[in-house]
């Protein structure tokens, strides 16, 4: 199939960017979207032009490195799919495909389609952990956890930290991402010890990073490649309110 690509090109963080049009021929419907970009980049290289920079790594939908806002959708048109698992059979011969980086003040563009998502790491550093040192922990089976709770915590833990929620949200809000971690640890007995400080600190860091607020549009959950649920956001709101009301942190 033959395609027309409109791709955001931006030299570096401080440069202005623009959409550049590239015609591309002979794409197989069995290719993944990133393999299609590989083909484009090989073409560009052969012509002596600079290839398009984009993030990718595992190419099996789990590392969360790939991003891309494709034809107005985070990770493209297929639900529950990361860009690396999106295949060209979902496009038609002659299609024009617009490819843009995630857009958020908290995710500055490094180059072309590569953005800086270190804000997510900093939010995790603010409290996304259980404070246990290596060694000296109880036997794994000393902490029985009801299967329904374990499953719920697991559903929250599947977040791959790709940032599609921020990209899809009209407010560039990171609530779905943050709430997934907060919920996972709030549900599990291991996380209950620090649940108050955790939610207080992670939300504070989220706000510092400059993400927007939640309008409950549900766009994040709809575009999440691993199906993180909006219930997590409600749970985080509950945790936050409860923590603020009852914690002894007056600062």
């Amino acid at each position, binding site marked *: 199939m033959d395609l027309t690509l409109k791709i955001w090109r931006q030299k570096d963080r401080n440069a202005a960017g623009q959409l550049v049009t590239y015609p591309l021929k002979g794409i197989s419907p069995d290719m993944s979207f990133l393999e299609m970009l590989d083909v484009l980049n090989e073409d560009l290289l052969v012509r002596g032009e600079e290839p398009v920079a984009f993030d990718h790594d595992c190419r099996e939908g789990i590392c969360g490195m790939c991003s891309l806002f494709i034809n107005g959708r985070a990770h493209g048109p297929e639900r529950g799919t990361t860009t690396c698992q999106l295949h060209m059979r979902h496009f038609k011969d002659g299609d024009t495909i617009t490819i843009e980086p995630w857009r958020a003040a908290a995710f500055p563009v490094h180059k072309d389609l590569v953005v800086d998502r270190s804000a997510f790491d900093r939010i995790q550093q603010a409290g996304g952990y259980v404070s246990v040192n290596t060694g000296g922990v109880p036997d794994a089976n000393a902490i029985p956890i009801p299967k329904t709770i374990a499953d719920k915590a697991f559903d929250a833990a599947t977040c791959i930290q790709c940032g599609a929620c921020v990209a899809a949200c009209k407010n560039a809000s990171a609530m779905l991402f943050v709430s997934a971690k907060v919920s996972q640890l709030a549900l599990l007995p291991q996380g209950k010890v620090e649940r108050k400080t955790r939610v207080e600190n992670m939300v504070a860091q989220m706000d510092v990073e400059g993400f927007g*607020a939640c309008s409950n549009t549900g766009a994040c959950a709809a575009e999440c490649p691993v199906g993180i649920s909006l219930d997590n956001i409600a749970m985080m709101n509950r945790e936050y309110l409860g923590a603020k009301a009852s914690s002894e942190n007056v600062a």
Partner: protein
Amino acid sequence: MNWFTKTFSSTIGRKIIMSVTGLFLCSFLVVHLVGNLQLFNADNGESFNVYSHFMATNPVIRVMEIVLVLGFLFHIYDAFVLTRRNKTARPVDYAEQHPQENSTWSSRNMGLLGTIILVFLIIHLWNFFVPARFGGLEGVVIDEVDYDNLYLRVVQSFQIWWYVAIYVISMVALAYHLIHGFQSAFQSLGLTHKKYTPFIKTFGYAFSVIVCLGFAIIPLYFFFFA
């Protein structure tokens, strides 16, 4: 800032204020609608005028009026602050986007809907509330007591077609605002549960439609039947 102001100036804190004030305003809508239903009494406006007099003079209502004004002000102020924050969170917009694939129109346009409602509110207050509270209405005697004839103002206002149109359009906007806002408030407050949330969603939808329909019928009734 102390912990209290910090809490309520965080993004989640502001959403909590939006929710609490929003739900409070919903309760006001119910009271207001129930009162207004007296317009349909075939007594030439007597019961309505007595009711409006009571609302304007009762000390409890006067206190609640202040609370109501605060509710509006906080709701509007936080909406403004949040909207500004949300805009700055995405300084460069997408060249192409298809949000209709992942969210409802009303959920994405609460600010627009809210602005329409605010404009309506100003018109509405100017026309009814201000004269009722501060004078400017004709008098009427009911059971040998003098009352302001607010009923007459209602009848006269709703003879004007464009005025009726403003009301009807605004009520449609309010309905959409509430359809998203009602259930959204429960989400923001973390009040979700597998058992009850479906009911809250259905109830919120029905509430929004019925209340707004109730308000919209009044101008239409007077335009076509009075």
